[in-house]
């Protein structure tokens, strides 16, 4: 996401970085290039112009700072403008004093409303809330059925009734109150385009249910039309924010900028994958960092803190430091990292992920985790504790038991050995300072890197680009961990 934009900005900055000072012509050229980058990223034309003017104002309004090179100043101005354009600070969600907090979702057909509804329900459940989903899309064939299936896998109850969408929504809120649910999420019907019928229906739902939050669901791949659509919905419903869907594509996500600018409301949530867990609060400042290639370690750490079982993490960290890290711990870690979301999504948040690495991260197959698990589970407890006892005949047995080949078993063992070696190094170096949660998270990061190695080793042959997927993000992960550790010696034999 935003990859092309960040690449172009990198290029512009790179060219300016070497200059001692920027001539007006240099500046105009850089601004023109940024404009092209924005347009290629599907930022609406007017919004792109406004953005450029903002950058220009930032650069001309202030005296040139002595501590920054001209190139850095341009990057800084673009970064500041991006943060502002994406919505400044994240929206702080509050809850109604008299529950339920009613959340209304609106949007065009295919924007991803139903999926977003289920993901939001899942997200609120993770926040310790008790949501109810209300299916008021009675128009699209099987939309309610889809919501029911998704609700079941999110373990959130779904309410719907045949007939009129408005009364269904009202009854849904009533049902939430009766059941004592504190969040009530209403999924509404989409239309092909903004039309009177759609607006009337959703407006009536809004009037009758008086939602605390009205979110517009916008497909991250939308083009120039995003601005007009958002404005029409905003005029009708007074939006509180935006949920950006399908941000895990290679879409450049310019719609995010357009919508924010046009309706003046922040992007609240962004969906980054197909799984129900793949939705999170949107942090404009962090996204700006990510666009500019600075990574999003903060989000990663938060995600780790939220999803990882601290006890499991502490136990395996202890064993790791003591050099007694076995395959059972490996499996635990695998599950912990998996809980954070898709491996690709996790890796994408690491700093220094350039284009190839980002693409490679997309290609990590989460199903490989199941294969790794099958192999480990086919080992005896003794083998798991000490893989060095696994000889040829044991390998054959494990391969047969897990439905894999001995080569795959070998690969896993080899990768595991490397990982053990790495962990011993980290353990010796120690990780000074920091809060315990973050500390554990940082260690898990290192593990995540090692994991992707192991996983990619198991993956079927892929084009060369895919090899990067495995090796280099892992290296990045280790690098990150080493930086934190400060005094760690590099692993031997690598």
């Amino acid at each position, binding site marked *: 996401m935003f990859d092309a934009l960040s690449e172009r900005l990198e290029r512009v900055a790179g060219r300016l970085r070497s200059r001692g000072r920027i001539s007006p012509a240099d500046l105009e050229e850089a601004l023109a290039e940024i404009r*092209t980058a924005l*347009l*290629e*990223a*599907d930022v*609406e*034309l*007017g*919004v792109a*112009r*406004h953005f450029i003017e903002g950058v220009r104002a930032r650069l001309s309004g202030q005296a040139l700072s002595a501590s920054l090179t001209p190139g850095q100043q341009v990057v800084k101005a673009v970064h500041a403008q991006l943060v502002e354009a994406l919505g400044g600070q994240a929206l702080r969600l509050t809850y109604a004093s008299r529950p339920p907090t009613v959340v209304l979702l609106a949007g*065009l*057909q*295919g*924007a*991803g409303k139903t999926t977003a509804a289920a993901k939001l329900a899942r997200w609120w459940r993770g926040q310790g809330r008790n949501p109810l989903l209300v299916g008021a899309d009675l128009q*699209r*064939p*099987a*939309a309610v*059925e*889809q*919501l*029911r*299936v*998704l609700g079941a896998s999110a373990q959130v109850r779904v309410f719907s009734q045949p007939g009129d969408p408005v009364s269904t929504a009202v009854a849904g809120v009533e049902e939430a109150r009766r059941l004592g649910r504190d969040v009530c999420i209403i999924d509404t019907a989409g*239309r*092909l*385009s*903004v039309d009177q019928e759609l607006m009337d229906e959703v407006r009536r739902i809004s009037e009758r249910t008086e939602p605390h939050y009205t979110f517009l669901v916008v*497909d991250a*791949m*939308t*083009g*120039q*039309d*995003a*601005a*007009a*659509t958002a*404005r029409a919905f905003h005029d009708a419903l007074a939006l509180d924010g935006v949920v950006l*869907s*399908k941000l*895990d*594509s*290679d*879409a*450049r996500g*310019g*719609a995010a900028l357009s919508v924010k*600018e*046009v309706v003046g409301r922040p992007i609240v949530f962004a969906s980054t994958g197909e799984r129900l867990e793949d939705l999170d609060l949107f942090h404009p400042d962090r996204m700006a960092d990510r666009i500019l290639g600075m990574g999003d370690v903060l989000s990663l750490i938060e995600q780790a803190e939220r999803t990882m079982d601290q006890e499991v993490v502490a136990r395996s960290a202890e064993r790791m430091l003591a050099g007694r890290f076995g395959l059972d711990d490996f499996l635990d870690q695998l599950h912990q990292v998996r809980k954070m979301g898709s491996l690709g999504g996790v890796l994408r948040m690491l700093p220094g992920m350039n284009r190839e690495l980002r*693409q490679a991260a*997309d*290609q990590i*197959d989460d*199903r490989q985790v199941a294969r790794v698990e099958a192999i480990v589970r086919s080992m005896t407890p003794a083998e798991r504790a000490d893989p060095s006892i696994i000889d040829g005949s044991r390998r054959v047995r494990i391969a047969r038991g897990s439905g894999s080949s001995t080569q795959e078993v070998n690969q896993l063992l080899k990768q595991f050995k490397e990982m053990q070696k790495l962990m011993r190094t980290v353990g010796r170096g120690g990780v000074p300072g920091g809060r315990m949660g973050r500390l554990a998270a940082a260690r898990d990061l290192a593990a995540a890197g090692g994991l992707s190695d192991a996983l990619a080793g198991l993956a079927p042959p*892929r084009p060369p680009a*895919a090899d990067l997927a495995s090796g280099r993000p892992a290296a990045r992960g280790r690098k990150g961990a080493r930086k934190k550790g400060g005094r760690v010696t590099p692993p031997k034999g690598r």
Partner: protein
Amino acid sequence: MVLRRRRRTQQGEPAPEPATGSAPTSTPPEPTPPAPPALRERLGRTRGLFAPLRALGARGEVAAAYDAAEEALLRADVGVETTQSLISSLRQSRPVGPGGVLAALADRLAEVFAENPDRSLRVERAPGVVSVWLFVGVNGVGKTTTVGKVALARREQGDSVLLAAADTFRAAAGDQLAQWSERAGVALHRGAPGSDPSSVVFDAIQRAGARGNDLVLVDTAGRLHTKVNLIEELRKIRRVADRPPGRVTEVLLVLDATTGQNALAQARQFTEAVGVTGVVLAKLDGTAKGGVVIPIERQLGLPVKLVGVGEGLADLVPFDPAAFVDALVGA
């Protein structure tokens, strides 16, 4: 910043949708039927884009006309590269006045579409062969709906159609297609949720062979073109669909008309993976201009074959380049 709001007044009542004769042609290709009034009518909404250019009048500045044309193309999602190349080729033709710029632009666009003249949809009429059309695309573009509409159109043309619900991933996708199959009055083959889509396709084609169906329409799960594993799955579906009696005669990429430049990436990746033969531009009845099909036609040589212009069963019509260009730049 001022954003122009395009609020179009409806010019007359929308014409009733033609129910027949709107469907795609088959081998041997028949001449494309003239575009039904509905297409022009619906596309008419995009005309506002070129209004500033037209407002320059006959004696306006040519330079201003280029700027206005550039802006309109960008706003239509044509993309920076294609827009710039169109504008520079316009300059070379040295048009006279803003009107000349507009006319020259229409000519250039018509030339782009003329590069891909064959927009027919193929059905193999050999005994013992079941033609297979695969519908592919990213999530939420309208594949299932498109399959339902095509099923109706083909049945009305006399084809014996079987639907294959190979989207076993999205919750209730099969149910949605089942409702379409009832509305269109064609048979449906579906597998268990979560089952291997290739096996659903295989079974559907076997069944079609046994029942004597001519055509199997395969609704595949939406997948982002960046997900290698899902694209691999699609390749496998295609391989399986080509096994006798099946023969893949069309692979149709469904695009959402509101999609921006990412549509180009989608077209490129899906073509590389499964050999897309044509594009279905869905959801064109919005304010969306669908201008991204211009770089798709021009750079990838992929013809747009069908256009979805409404929500009704009969609102899927053959793509008519002249009507599209006419509606885009207006006249």
